[in-house]
C-alpha cells in the first residue's frame, strides 16, 4: 500500500497551502511526504471498503440490470440490453400500478401525517414545561426495532386488538384493517408516520428555538391571536425546518419496506407492495436478479427526481423568503 502510493506524493506541489516561506525546505518536503503517506494509511480501510462495497456493487447492479442470470456461475451472465426495464413497464406488469403508485402513496401519506402531527406537537411542546421529558417520550418508537413496531401494531389492528376494541367501545363495528385491500395501505402508512413523528419533532424544535422571542412580543403588542401568530409568524419562519423534514421523510418513505414485510408482506394481493419490496422479492424469492436490479435502478431514479424537485422548491422558497 505504502509503496504504491508514495509516487503520488510528488504531486504535493498542487497541495492546498504552503506554510509561509520555506525556512527549512528539505525537512518540510520530507515531512509533507510523510504526512501524505500517513494520511493514505489512515484512509486505507475506508477507501478499500468503498471500492469493494460501493463502487463494485454499483457496477455489478448495473451489469445485472441489463442481464439475465441464473445466479450461480458468474460466467453465465447473459446480456439482454434493456429487456428487464421494458419488462417492468410492459402490459400486464404490476410494477407501475399498483407497486410504484403504492410507493408514492406510501411516502406521500407518511410525510403528510408525520408533518402535520409533528408541527402540532412541536409547537405545543414549545409552550410547556418539562420539554425534555415530553420529547423523550415521543422518541420511544425511534429506538425500537421495526419488528417490534410492526408486530405491536399488527396485533392492535386485529379484530380482538386495541384499535378495534376502542372502535367497539364507541359503538362502531370492527374493521379488518390489514386484510382489506382498501384499508391495508393507509393502515401501514399510519404506523410509519407514528414511528417517525419523534424525530421530526426534534428537527422542528430546533427550528422553533431559532425564532426570536421579540417577534412574538411584537405580535402580542399588536394584539394578534394565537392562530394569527401561528400562521403568520411560526409557520413561515419554520419553513427551512419543514422542508428539511419533508425531504428526508420523503426519501425514507420511498425506500423503506421493512415495516411492510413485518406487517403485511405486501398483501393482500399487491395492496401494500412497494418498489423496494418488489425488488427484494424478485431477487431473493424468485431469483430474478435482472428484473430486481432493474427495479432498484428505477426506484433510484424516482428517489433522485423527487429529491431534486424538492431541493428546487427549497431553493426557490429560500430566495423569496
Amino acid at each position: 500500500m505504502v509503496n504504491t502510493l508514495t509516487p503520488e506524493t510528488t504531486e504535493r506541489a498542487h497541495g492546498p497551502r504552503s506554510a509561509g516561506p520555506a525556512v527549512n525546505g528539505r525537512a518540510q518536503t520530507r515531512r509533507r511526504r510523510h504526512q501524505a503517506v500517513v494520511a493514505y494509511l489512515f484512509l486505507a480501510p475506508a477507501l478499500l471498503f468503498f471500492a469493494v462495497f460501493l463502487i463494485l456493487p454499483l457496477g455489478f447492479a448495473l451489469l445485472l440490470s441489463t442481464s439475465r442470470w441464473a445466479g450461480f456461475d458468474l460466467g453465465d451472465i447473459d446480456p439482454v440490453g434493456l429487456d428487464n426495464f421494458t419488462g417492468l413497464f410492459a402490459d400486464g406488469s404490476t410494477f407501475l400500478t399498483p407497486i410504484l403508485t403504492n410507493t408514492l402513496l406510501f411516502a406521500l401519506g407518511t410525510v403528510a401525517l408525520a408533518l402535520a402531527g409533528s408541527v402540532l406537537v412541536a409547537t405545543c411542546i414549545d409552550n410547556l414545561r418539562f420539554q425534555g421529558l415530553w420529547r423523550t417520550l415521543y422518541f420511544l418508537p425511534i429506538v425500537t426495532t421495526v419488528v417490534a413496531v410492526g408486530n405491536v401494531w399488527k396485533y392492535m389492528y386485529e379484530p380482538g386488538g386495541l384499535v378495534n376494541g376502542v372502535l367497539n367501545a364507541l359503538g362502531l363495528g370492527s374493521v379488518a384493517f390489514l386484510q382489506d385491500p382498501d384499508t391495508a395501505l393507509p393502515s401501514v402508512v399510519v404506523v410509519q408516520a407514528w414511528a417517525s413523528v419523534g424525530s421530526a419533532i426534534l428537527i422542528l424544535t430546533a427550528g422553533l428555538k431559532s425564532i426570536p422571542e421579540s417577534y412574538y412580543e411584537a405580535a402580542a403588542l399588536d394584539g394578534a391571536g394565537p392562530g394569527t401568530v401561528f400562521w403568520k409568524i411560526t409557520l413561515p419562519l419554520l419553513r427551512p425546518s419543514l422542508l428539511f423534514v419533508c425531504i428526508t421523510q420523503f426519501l425514507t418513505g420511498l425506500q423503506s419496506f421493512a415495516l411492510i414485510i413485518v406487517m403485511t408482506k405486501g398483501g393482500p394481493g399487491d395492496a401494500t407492495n412497494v418498489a423496494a419490496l418488489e425488488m427484494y422479492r424478485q431477487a431473493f424469492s424468485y431469483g430474478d436478479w435482472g428484473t430486481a436490479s432493474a427495479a432498484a435502478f428505477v426506484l433510484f431514479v424516482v428517489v433522485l427526481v423527487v429529491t431534486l424537485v424538492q431541493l428546487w422548491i427549497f431553493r426557490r422558497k429560500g430566495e423569496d423568503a
Partner: protein
Amino acid sequence: MNRRRFPWFSYLVVVTGAVLTVVPFLDMVMTSFKGPGESGTLPYRFLPEAFDLSNYRAAVAQLDLPVLFRNSVIATALITGSVLLTSSLAGYALAKLRFPGRNFIFRLVLSTMMFPPFLFFIPHFLILVHWPLAGGNDLFGRGGAGLTVSIAALVVPFLVNGFGIFLTRQFMVSIPDEVLEAARIDGAGEFAVWWRIVVPQTKPVLVTLGLLTFVDAWNEYIWALLVSTANPDVMTLPVGIQLLQDYVDPTRTMPIVMAGLALSILPVLILFLLLQKHYIRGVMLSGLK
C-alpha cells in the same frame, strides 16, 4: 410570552400525542402477561387477568435466546467498533492532514451518503456469496456459499459509514493546528497525535456516533433476515422474534411474541434512557432516521 397563552390547548395536544405514542408499548407489555385465551378475543381487554410470566418462559424456550443474543451482540459490537475506528481515522486524515487528492476523497465520502441502501442489497449479497476462498469457494468465488455462512455476513456491509467519516471530520476541523504542531515538535508520530490528542478531543461526537450506530445495528432487520435465511446460525434477535409468529399454540402466540419483543427492545431502551442527550444530538446532526 404570547407563546405561552392557552396552555390548556397545548397540554391537550401533547398529552393526547404522548398517550398515542406510549399506548402501543403498554399494550405490548400488557399482552405479554396475558394467559391462554386472553388475547385476541372479543371484547378487547387492556389489562391481563393475572400477570402471567409463562409467556416469557415460553419465548425463551421457543427461541435459542442465548445464540440470538450472542449474534446480535457480536454483530452490533463489531459494527460499532469498526465505524468508530474507521471514521475517526479517516476523519482525522481529511480534517488535519495535507495530501494530494484530499478534496476528491472528501467528495467521494460525501457522495456515498447519496446512494439509497436498497440499491446494494442484491450486489452485496452476491459479493458475499462469491467471496473468494471463503465458505468453500475457490479463488474465483465458485463452489461454495462464501461469507454468507459466517457471522461476517451480518457485519461486513456496515463496517464503514460515510456519514460517520463526515461527522467526525467536521468536528476535527475545529481542533487548532497549533496543538497538533506542538505535539509533532515534541516528537509524536501522526498515530500518537491521532490517538492521544485528536481522539480524546472528539469524544463527544464519537459517543454520539457510537450510540447512533449501535441502535441502528441492533435494530437492523432486512439484511439480517436475508443473511439468516441463507444461514440460520447467524440469526439475530429481531429475525428470531419475528419467527415466533409461527409458534403453534393459537391462544398463546401473540402474548409470547410480545414477551419476546419486550425482551429484545429492553437493552436499547435502557441505553437510550441513559444516554438520550447524545442520541438526540445525533439525530439532530444526522437529520432524520
